[in-house]
Each structure stands twice: as structure tokens, then as C-alpha cells.
């Protein structure tokens, strides 16, 4: 991070010229500075194309203009959420969704938007388990809980680990 404006640097990862992302990591108490090109940086999850700090979402949406199709069918299609009545135009104006249902209504459009904001659309992390979960929902939740358990043990939070073990036990199919 915070490399000193070095131009025409070679990317440490692919060897091509044009490293634009410079960052320093601390590994075993030693600092190691890496220089990456934009493509490699993105692949490593170091996003370079992110909206700047003070850019409000509404501006962001406005700047996107028409280049993001609302749906594969028609670029200017006007949709309205059947639950809360929010329209595509409303959303572009305020930058806020109206209700959970909006995410299904504007799904196609949002997928493009989320990709731009977050670099992807697939949630990773905590899995919510609804009442009456299906077997696959349970399995996903279990996976997430086991991951959390490993971290709790690593960080020696044994109280939390015990809670997590209990949760895992109640979810695990009786064998």
C-alpha cells in the first residue's frame, strides 16, 4: 500500500509492464512490497475500480447512464415492484430499494449493478436458516458454521466455539 508513485513498474505476478497497485504486507514481521497490474490485482481481490469515497450512490447510478441494460429484453424497460410499488426510475433517483421483493423485481438490473459495486454477486459468509429449512439450506448453513468454528478455535474463543458446536450438532442429520 501507499507505494511512491512508481510508474512503468513490472507486475510481480505476470511480469508485464504497467503495475498500478502497490501494497505492502507484513509477513513474519518483515514488510514485503508488491506491485501488481490492474488485472492481477483484481484477480487477487484488490479492487482498483471502486467508486470513490464521496461518490453518492445516486450519482453513481446516474453516471452509469444507459450503458447497463435493465434487462436482456429492453434497455429502457420500466419495472415496478408488485409489493412496494418502487419503479426503476424511483430507484435511480434515490439509490435505495423499497423492500426485499425489489431484489427479485429488479434482479437482472441489480446483478449488473452489484457486480460494479462489489465486484461480484454471490454472497459468501453467514447463511441464514429460515424456519422449515430444506436439506440444502441446512447443508449450506452447516458449512458456514464449521468455517466459523475453525476461526473461533484459532482465536481461542472457546465459549463461542462451544456454542457453535451445539448449533452444528442440532443441524447435523442424525446418522
Amino acid at each position: 500500500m501507499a507505494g511512491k508513485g512508481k510508474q512503468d513498474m513490472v507486475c510481480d505476478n505476470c511480469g508485464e509492464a504497467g503495475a498500478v497497485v502497490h501494497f505492502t504486507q507484513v509477513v513474519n514481521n518483515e514488510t514485503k512490497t508488491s506491485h501488481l497490474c490492474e488485472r492481477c490485482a483484481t484477480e487477487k481481490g484488490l479492487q482498483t475500480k471502486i467508486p470513490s469515497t464521496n461518490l453518492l450512490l445516486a450519482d453513481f447510478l446516474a453516471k452509469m447512464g444507459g450503458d447497463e441494460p435493465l434487462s436482456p429484453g429492453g434497455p429502457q424497460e420500466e419495472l415496478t415492484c408488485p409489493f412496494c410499488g418502487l419503479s426503476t426510475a424511483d430507484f435511480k433517483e434515490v439509490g435505495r430499494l423499497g423492500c426485499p421483493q425489489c431484489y427479485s423485481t429488479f434482479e437482472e438490473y441489480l446483478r449488473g449493478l452489484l457486480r460494479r459495486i462489489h465486484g461480484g454477486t454471490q454472497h459468501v459468509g453467514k447463511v441464514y436458516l429460515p424456519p422449515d429449512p430444506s436439506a440444502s439450506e441446512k447443508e449450506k448453513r452447516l458449512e458456514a458454521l464449521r468455517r466459523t468454528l475453525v476461526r473461533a478455535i484459532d482465536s481461542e474463543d472457546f465459549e463461542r466455539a462451544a456454542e457453535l458446536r451445539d448449533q452444528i450438532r442440532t443441524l447435523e442429520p442424525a446418522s
Partner: protein
Amino acid sequence: MDDLATIPDYGLGWLDASGPSSDIVLSTRVRLARNLQGHAFGPRSRVNDREAVLSLVRSVIEKSSHLSGASLWELAKVSPRTQKILLERRLVSEDLLGGKKGVPPRGAAVLLSTKDPTSVMVNEEDHLRLQSLLSGLRLQDAWGLVDRLEEELGNELPLAYHHEFGFLTSCPTNVGTGLRASVLMHLPGLVLTKEIGQVLKGLNQVGLTFRGLYGEGSEVVGNFFQVSNQTTLGKAEEDLVGHLDQIVRQVIQYEEHARHVLLKEAPAVTEDKIWRAYGLLRYARSLSFEELINLLSGVRLGSSLKLLPNLRVYTLNKIMIYSQTAHLEQAAGRDLPLPECDAHRASFVRRILAREGVVTSDGESSPESP
């Protein structure tokens, strides 16, 4: 319920400066956004949506042993001064208090735990905004606390969740984990050595963002920066928190290095700046909050560099919170219009610094003579 005496130290636990690196990292905060199925989100919600959400939250408190003893404050039923105190302690947002209208919407509430430093804003932009607030750099712990609280609420409430997008939020910038982890850092060394620009640019390059002391879009005053994750979707909570932690540790190293450079290359100027800040705080008869924050920055640097011995970080944290307008008004027992408010602020700061005794440059301290 409208008596602040009944909320003794909600949101103030972090002031004790007990956490790691607490001279540079004042506090760590982790916030989780959650919404309930079947109700419009905050900005589009109607009164009946908000009341339904609030009564569901109330029912969870009654059932949960983890939340037993927690208090739920409906903001419209709380005096304007108490509302502002909650705001000054960062337990509620400007929006939850009604924004520019200044009247909290029906159903807007804050849940304050008595067991740990966690709280929940109810009916803000999202139905639930869980947060934890800790001293120093303690990201994993802060995440653990909200994670635990989220289980408690999520086990009882039907949350809005999408198989692909994760937890659904009013603003698409929060969707997925709904997690925003932020640390409040004091970076005078990097500002004075003019390296701050590079560091902030670096933060942006690694997917982090920063803002000033008070909330979104606020200006940077007193060299205080809030650093937080920019994206919420596509990475697990532990990874978001771990990444921020790793970068913040680097920034701390940069800051320490910059302070070292200052002391080596410009010791006289640095010392002078620090002592001037202390002198003004110690003797001024009128202080605006912004001026105070800027002076506190100098004094905080002095305390951290041991140039102002005996001055505890705890005292400086306390000044920062208790010299805000609503806190001063609470102490005075009445409203304080300008310029009275600035006079009260200066007098409060003089008193608290006098109590710390004389801070001498050779490290000796003696009780102040009257």
C-alpha cells in the same frame, strides 16, 4: 424512561482506552444491517411496517436470555436532549432521529444491551442495524459480539435473505453480509509529514474507504479518520474483518514511523505545536467543538509521544465525548445557546485538565496551586 440517569454508561465503555493500540485507534465498531421479510425498508416504510418491526423486536427481547435486561428506547418518546446524547455517543444516527425534520419517525428506536457494548437501531434505513463498539483495535472481538447478537435476533425473526445476494438491504452497497467494520484512527504524524494522501490512496486501492469523525461524508477534523470496508458482498465476514485488521495494523506502523520522523527531524516545531495545543486547552475561556477537536489532536499526539506525561488517553477520550453540546447541556441542566456553550466547553476542559495536575516537560507532575 426519559431520564439519562437510567442510562449510565451506554456507549461509553470504549473511553477507558483499554484496547490494543488505543492511543492511535480510538475505537472499533462493527455494524450489521438486517431486514425483516414482508415489510418495506425504512425509507419506503409506512407507520404500520415500522410498528410491526418494533413489536417483533420487543417480543425477541422478552424471550431471549441474552437480551434480558436490555432496554428499548422509542426515540419519539425521549426528550430532544437525550436523543442528542445518544447521537453524540454514536448509538443512534442522524437519520434515526428524523434527519432534517428533527422528529424521529414513529417506530424509530434503539435497543441497548446491558451485558455487552452492543446496540441495535430499529427502523433506520434498514429495519435492524446491529452494532458493537470497543476500545482500541479489536475487530475480531467486535465482530464476534454482533455475530452473537445477530444469532439471537435471527433465530426468532424472519430475515430478508436471498440465495445469491445474501442479506438484503435498503441500499445495494450494503447487501450480502451487511457488514461495515470501521476503526476510528488518529493520524497526526501522517498528516504532518504529508504522507497521509498516499496512505489514503492506498486504502482505496485495497478496497477500503475513509471518512471524517462523524458519519458519512463528514469532513476530517483533528486528524481523526474512520477507516472501513468498502464492499460487503462476495467475501465472508471474517475475511472482511481480517483484511481491515491487517491494513489498519500497517497504517499504525506508518503512523508510528511518521511520528518518529517528526521527533527526529523537527523536534522543536513538534514540541511547540503540542505545548501550544495544551496551553490553549488548559487556559482558553471559549472553545468551539471544532477548535477543541483540533487542539485535542495535538495534545493526544503529545500524550502518545510521552511529551505530555501524566496525561492519560482516557482523559482525552472523555473530553472528546463530554464536551459535545448535548453532554454539556445535560451537565448544566439546561439548554446552552452560543456563546454560552463555548464558554461551558472551555470551563469543562480546564477543570478536567486541572484535575490531572501540572504536566511538566521533564516528566514531573505536581498538584496545581489554586
